[in-house]
């Protein structure tokens, strides 16, 4: 049976009709990992088939998890040598929910160490390669997850985003990446990076798969006090509702400094949205460069606090194992939180964060969603990142405002640039309004088939 490129939903049907067994399906993907991953290095840990007797929404579906999700009795490193020998004694809530829904865990995917980065090059286990061009970065920090889906080593993967870590690798690797609202999906058992930002989310080949997986992993969790009690929507039903007259906001501030051929693809995509019967409305937002500063201050502060727990006593290696990027971030966070600088940096940043949230709230009074490019340029060559101390933030400039405000956003393919590299379009929505951004993404997918980007990406790995 030719399974190449089949969505999670397609695979689900094959399993329920008993046309393929969970075991056979797992082996198909396992073989693909063996064949292609020496080159791509998307996986840190590859697992063998283990039968999952749970009958749920994802019965028998092979799925990979980013290596910052705790997996009981399965090594979890966050791609950091500090955690080289760490075997979690419990499952993250997301891991448990997926297992309860019937998945067969394929393995753990590579990432920037501690998720500190936008290219997956800071992994202590070596960089993941972009399936579209192995001399380029897949983006990060969920680079292993995006590469695995792009080359069809996993039919879907779970990534995590603090500011861009799902959307950027999804854009650069030519797949779909959904960052839910902060608090929509539990962070319990996810190795903490920036606790006021972190959002688990799916990376998939179709919008409906993203809707399906979000439904499985979303919801209140009493073990994560920041999860919301707001009811989870039935996203699969919601995306199919005909919604024609959406008001779509476009802000010039998000179109500065874009590479020309990328800009062209985004303009073409906006025309598609118009053709679908939606209304484009010019809006003005706070320039994203301020979100970079807010993010840099707050995230470093949260990193210095979160990574202080690694004392080498209770588990994991001691602090001499930290890599360069983690040390740099811990140091800067320690500085901005220290006596005498707290007001000037941390408190100031939290105030500007309020301005950014209010700015989005104001915009969402006039528009249903905001559309922008996901990144200013397409995938960079490996090694480009090292030259700058916070180059990742500059690559993530268009992702950081939504992360700072905690609103949901999805990155979807919008064609290829002049170098034949995938371009990502993002749709941002109101807090807890994942259904609307997914609905619009689904309409766009039906209209354009993402210009064949996803199919072409998978075909490269036949």
């Amino acid at each position, binding site marked *: 049976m030719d399974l190449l490129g089949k969505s999670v939903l397609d695979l689900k049907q094959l399993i329920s009709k008993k046309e393929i067994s969970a075991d056979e399906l797992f082996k198909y993907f396992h073989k693909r990992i063996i064949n292609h991953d020496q080159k791509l290095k998307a996986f840190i840990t590859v697992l063998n088939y283990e039968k999952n007797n749970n009958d749920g929404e994802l019965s028998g579906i092979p799925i990979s998890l980013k290596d910052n999700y705790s997996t009981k009795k399965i090594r979890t490193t966050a791609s950091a040598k500090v955690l080289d*020998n*760490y*075997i979690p*004694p*419990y499952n993250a809530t997301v891991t448990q929910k997926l297992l309860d829904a019937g998945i067969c865990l394929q393995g753990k995917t590579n990432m920037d160490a501690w998720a500190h980065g936008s290219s997956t090059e800071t992994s202590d286990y070596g960089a993941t390669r972009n399936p579209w061009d192995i001399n380029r970065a897949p983006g990060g920090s969920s680079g292993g997850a995006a590469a695995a889906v792009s080359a069809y080593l996993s039919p879907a993967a779970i990534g995590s985003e603090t500011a861009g870590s799902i959307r950027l690798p999804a854009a650069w690797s030519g797949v779909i990446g959904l960052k839910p*609202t*902060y*608090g929509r999906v539990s962070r319990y058992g996810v190795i903490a990076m920036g606790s*006021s930002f972190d959002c688990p989310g799916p990376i998939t080949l179709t919008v409906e798969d993203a809707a399906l997986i979000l439904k499985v992993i979303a919801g209140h969790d*009493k*073990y994560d*006090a*920041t999860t*919301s009690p707001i009811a989870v929507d039935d996203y699969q039903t919601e995306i199919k509702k005909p919604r024609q007259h959406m008001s779509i906001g476009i802000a010039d501030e998000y179109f500065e400094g874009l590479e020309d051929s990328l800009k062209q693809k985004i303009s073409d995509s906006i025309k598609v949205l118009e053709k679908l019967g939606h209304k484009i409305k010019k809006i003005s937002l706070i320039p994203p*460069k*301020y979100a*970079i*500063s*807010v993010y*840099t*201050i707050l995230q470093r502060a949260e990193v*210095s606090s979160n990574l*202080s727990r690694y*004392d080498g*006593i*209770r*588990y*994991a290696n001691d*602090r*001499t194992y*930290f890599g*360069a990027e983690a*040390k*740099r971030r*811990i*140091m*800067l966070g*320690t*500085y901005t939180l*220290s006596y005498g600088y707290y007001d000037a*940096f941390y*408190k*100031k*940043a*939290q*105030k*500007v*964060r*309020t*301005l950014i*949230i209010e700015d989005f709230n104001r915009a969402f009074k006039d528009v249903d969603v905001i559309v922008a490019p996901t990144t200013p340029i397409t995938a960079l060559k490996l090694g480009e990142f090292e030259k700058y*101390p*916070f180059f990742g933030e500059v690559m993530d400039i268009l992702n950081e405002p939504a992360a700072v*405000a*905690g609103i949901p956003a999805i990155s979807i393919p919008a064609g290829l640039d002049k170098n034949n590299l995938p371009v990502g379009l993002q749709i941002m929505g109101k*807090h*807890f309004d994942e259904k609307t951004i997914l609905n619009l993404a689904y309409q766009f997918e039906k209209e354009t088939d993402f210009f064949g980007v996803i199919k072409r990406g998978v075909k490269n790995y036949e």
Partner: protein
Amino acid sequence: MKKTELTKEEIIHLAKLAGLNLTAEEIVKYQQQFSETLDYINNLNELNTESVKPTSQTVDLSNVCFEDGEQNKRQLSINEVLTNTSSKTADNFKVNRIQ
């Protein structure tokens, strides 16, 4: 604009606070990189935040508590807690004496 520069001593002090050992090379590198980063983030001062309240969390939750008497079903056993340590004695972590 005025360049923000940290002295070598400040970098060494920060490293001590953060429990990190830095090489001489790293100290010089961080001095230069911090200066670059701090100069960038100073752009926040272009925005007036005089009457703005700082954000503490983004989605308006308040007073989140565990219900009284609720069981913590995910509590780990002592054995589970000790599985990853390299230094223990009976049911305890074993650490060096504070100097």
